[in-house]
């Protein structure tokens, strides 16, 4: 019985310490997030990818030019028949 009351005491202690630490830790995170948003939030870099795409797109036009040429050649051949 005495053992049980000891255990209950431990459990109550753990409950108190646990909740305090959980709140303190997550509270600290709240402060950190707010600070972070202040320094790094705001502007949303929407299109950082565009520059990377551009060289590709020139490639694409070159390719589509080739394709157009091939298609018109095919049409030409077809009409000649």
């Amino acid at each position, binding site marked *: 019985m005495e053992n049980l009351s000891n255990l209950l005491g431990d*459990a109550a202690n*753990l409950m108190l*310490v*646990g909740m305090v630490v959980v709140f303190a830790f*997550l509270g600290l995170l*709240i402060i950190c997030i707010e600070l*972070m948003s202040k320094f790094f939030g705001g502007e*949303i870099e929407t299109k950082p990818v565009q520059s990377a795409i551009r060289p590709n797109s020139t490639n694409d036009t070159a390719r589509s030019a080739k394709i157009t040429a091939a298609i018109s050649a095919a049409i030409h051949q077809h009409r000649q028949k």
Partner: protein
Amino acid sequence: MEGLMTLWQSTGLANFVLGQVIMMTVGFGLLYLAIVKKFEPLLLLPIGFGALLTNIPLAGFTDAGGLLHYIYYIGIETGVFPLLIFMGVGAMTDFSALIANPKMLLLGAAAQFGIFATLFGAILLNLIPGFEFTLADAAAIAIIGGADGPTAIFLASKLAPELLGAIAVAAYSYMALVPIIQPPIMKALTNNEERQIQMEQLRPVSQREKIIFPLMVLFAAILFLPSATPLVGCFCLGNLMRECGVVDRLSKTAQNEMINIVTIFLGLAVGSKLSADQFLTVETLGILALGAVAFGIGTACGVLMAKLMSRLSGGKINPLIGAAGVSAVPMAARVVNKVGLESNPHNFLLMHAMGPNVAGVLGSAVAAGILLALV
């Protein structure tokens, strides 16, 4: 004649004991829940099948040298599987709802009261003859209230491996039962007016914030709660892979192939703990009951905290979202959305509930860290 007798002796029929039959029925029950009722099928199916395999007479799946013995030893005793799952979950989690509204972390913290109250309750159960939970057992049982499968398995494997089967089954069953357990509690603690509160749209979050967030969480854990860093660290690694945008291949692997493979083996290993001698005890009943209590208290505390915040903010927060503080991502958030829609068909709370929902994951990892450090 003697040959026939020997053959008979080597059949399953001749060697079944009652406990194995009961546990196989439990295994079939889990398969039924997974396949027909679609309750957490990804986990209950391998767990149920593992329960079948482990109770086969003479096959020795869980004896030294058996397949399940090794899977359990490699994956769970070492704590590796739950941590890998956590990495995958991190790679699947989008924190932008939380970063846009960081106060939601308070809801994730409040809902963890379910864990610590249950810890107390588990010790109180010792008053009933037949129960003898130590503080470590009680802590492992209480984490069911965190509503987070991998965290529960991780903590149970460290603190009370002999209870792991019951704890894992309870944790995943209650996570599947979230849509049944939570709504009555949520409705009892709020009135219709409160449930109709519409919340402001969340601000967009920059990619830079999303990249810094996991690093910041990890850093805070390193400084103040190193015992939580196995869980938090894996989670943050997964999340960083997702958000940084340069390792899409790794992020996709963590979200799909890796977590799927680990889930299969994690389920089997948990199922291997469903052997008659370990599961058919009065403790299992106690664990199942305590798990339900833990869930209920966690939900109630989350809602009450949200009510308080709603009052303080002048009615800008819908108290329902507090219920999502008990992780169980994304089921709890969906339940919040559903209950909200019942009161006001134009009020979509899903994104708002994702904030406390992912906060709950962090909260239960932190709670697990505290229990590991103090018990």
